[in-house]
């Protein structure tokens, strides 16, 4: 479990993180959404004990990042957005070094490395020099490295950035597997459709502040605002028009007589929308098609970050 309590980070007069409050339950995959400079990497750096907060604290598995950073490091696996590798180390040696860095005994390391390389599908590359791997392979190796000490929490800052579509799919599959292992995963990504598919919860950050937090669908509903609905009917266009004009949640009705089509803006919830459809059918309006022009997370992201430097 992760509790973020009033986390603030200031660089001089610039506030990178502003009294951020958040609780993430164990085993949850939580996606962080926000423009560049919104504060995602700052939060991740604080949680990874690389940065000290100006105010507030974060508690990871009962350990404070402020007071017990060494204990927090045992609980987390961190993958930064940009990272390098040692050019004279082989894949196995790379993992062995980090295993030793976490104090894992040599005999256990061998077994672990074998399992991790299988997990990230790099077994065949175990004797290759790390710097000769492709970008996607390096990302997967870095993910394996972050898992070497079997952490309860994974902090992944843009794990899919710079990857080609195939490498993204491979990364997504590995993350799904890790989710099934019960890891708490914090992940930031710009690839939002993939993120929404994988995440249980979404956190939206803008200018260091928490804008929204909740289940993916809830956030989408909260942020997308009004729905644009298009109804196609067989006939009785005027009856349908009168029916929809009576509903106080409907506005901006537009009728295209040649297509027997009515479009309008709807302010109601999903439940109210079901009720609207039921009443329409009861009123014998011959609806044969109803489509909702819903925004996906990408649109939501663009709407939130409008004007920001992405």
């Amino acid at each position, binding site marked *: 479990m992760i509790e973020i309590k009033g986390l603030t980070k200031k660089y001089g007069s610039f506030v990178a993180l502003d009294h951020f409050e958040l609780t993430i339950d164990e085993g949850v995959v939580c996606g962080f959404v926000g423009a560049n400079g919104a504060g995602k990497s700052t939060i991740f*750096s604080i949680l*990874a*004990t*690389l*940065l*000290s907060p100006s105010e507030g604290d974060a508690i990871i598995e009962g350990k404070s990042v*402020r*007071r017990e*950073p*060494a204990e927090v*490091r*045992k609980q*987390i696996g*961190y993958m*930064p957005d*940009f*990272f*390098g*590798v*040692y050019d*004279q*180390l082989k894949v196995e*040696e790379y993992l062995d*070094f*980090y295993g*030793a*860095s*976490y*104090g894992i*005994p*040599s005999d256990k390391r061998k077994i672990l490395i074998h399992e991790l390389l299988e997990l990230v599908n790099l077994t065949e590359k175990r004797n290759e020099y790390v710097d000769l791997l492709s970008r996607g392979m390096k990302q997967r190796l*870095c993910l394996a*490295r972050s898992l070497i*000490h079997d952490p309860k929490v994974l902090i992944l800052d843009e794990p899919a950035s710079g990857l080609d579509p195939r490498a993204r799919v491979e990364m997504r599959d590995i993350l799904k597997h890790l989710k099934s292992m019960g890891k708490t995963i914090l992940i930031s990504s710009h690839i939002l459709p993939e993120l929404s598919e994988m995440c249980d919860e979404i956190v939206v950050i803008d200018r260091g502040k928490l804008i929204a937090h909740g289940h993916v669908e809830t956030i989408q509903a909260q942020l997308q605002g009004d729905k644009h609905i298009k109804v196609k009917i067989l006939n009785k266009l005027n009856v349908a028009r009168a029916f929809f004009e009576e509903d106080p949640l409907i506005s901006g009705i537009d009728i295209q007589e040649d297509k027997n089509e009515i479009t309008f803006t709807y302010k109601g919830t999903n439940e109210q929308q079901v009720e609207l459809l039921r009443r329409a059918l009861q009123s014998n309006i011959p609806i044969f098609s109803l489509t909702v022009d819903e925004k996906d997370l990408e649109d939501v992201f663009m709407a939130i970050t409008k004007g920001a430097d992405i």
Partner: protein
Amino acid sequence: MMQRFSNPVLMKELKLRFRAFKSFSGLMFYLFLLFIFVGGFLSVFTQFTGTGFFRPSESFIMFSVISVLQMALVMFITPGLTAGAISSERERQTLNILLTTTQSSTQIIIGKLLSSIAFLILLLVAGLPLYSIVFLFGGVSPTQLITIFLSYLLTVVAIGSIGIMFSTITKKTIVSMIATYGAMIFLGAVTAFLFFVGFSLDRMPTSPVGGFSTNSPITFFWASINPGALMLTVLYPELGTELSNLTGISMPNWVVYIIFYSLITVVCLWIAIRKLRANMKHSR
């Protein structure tokens, strides 16, 4: 038990260092320089005497010159090996990952220092066969040889610590390199200059005892912390006595040297350990 004393950074650094071709070429270059010098010295001296043999006194001169030359080489190489220890990790974007492991800052810094020192010790040990040529001709005691090597070790550790400190507190390797070479030049050359300035001032006619000062701790200090001066006083103990007479300080200069360079080591390593996780307070 072994697990407790193992240092992953040290093991990794040793692996990387000894795999790199530049380490091998550096070692070859170092030995080549020593070989040229020893060979040149032997051929020049045997031609001067015209006898074809080498006297113990000449052997001692060769030992002295090699000792000072090796000290100069070691002082020149050490900043190159240590001044990029942390900053290169930062530039390579591997430092953040290293800092999120459970290794303490002390372990990381000591691992970096020891790996650099290990390479320098390899240089010194690899040069021993060339060095030992002097034993063929006599004139040098094993105690002198051991003392010289211990002086190298202390100097290397101190300058290495300075390099590691600058590497930790500066972001760029080039800045750290310049700062460390600056410190090395100060210790090797500026202290000698300051000693001669102090010595000249002490000998001025205005001095209360007719040109010679009876108590010049500052002048004595500059001479005592100069690695070249230490070499000379170890090789020629009478120079140490002369220094004491000139400055009026009876303490052996090697005592000051050991205290000063040990202090530098401790202070620099302490700063490096504190500053490694500069963005995280209370980390060791």
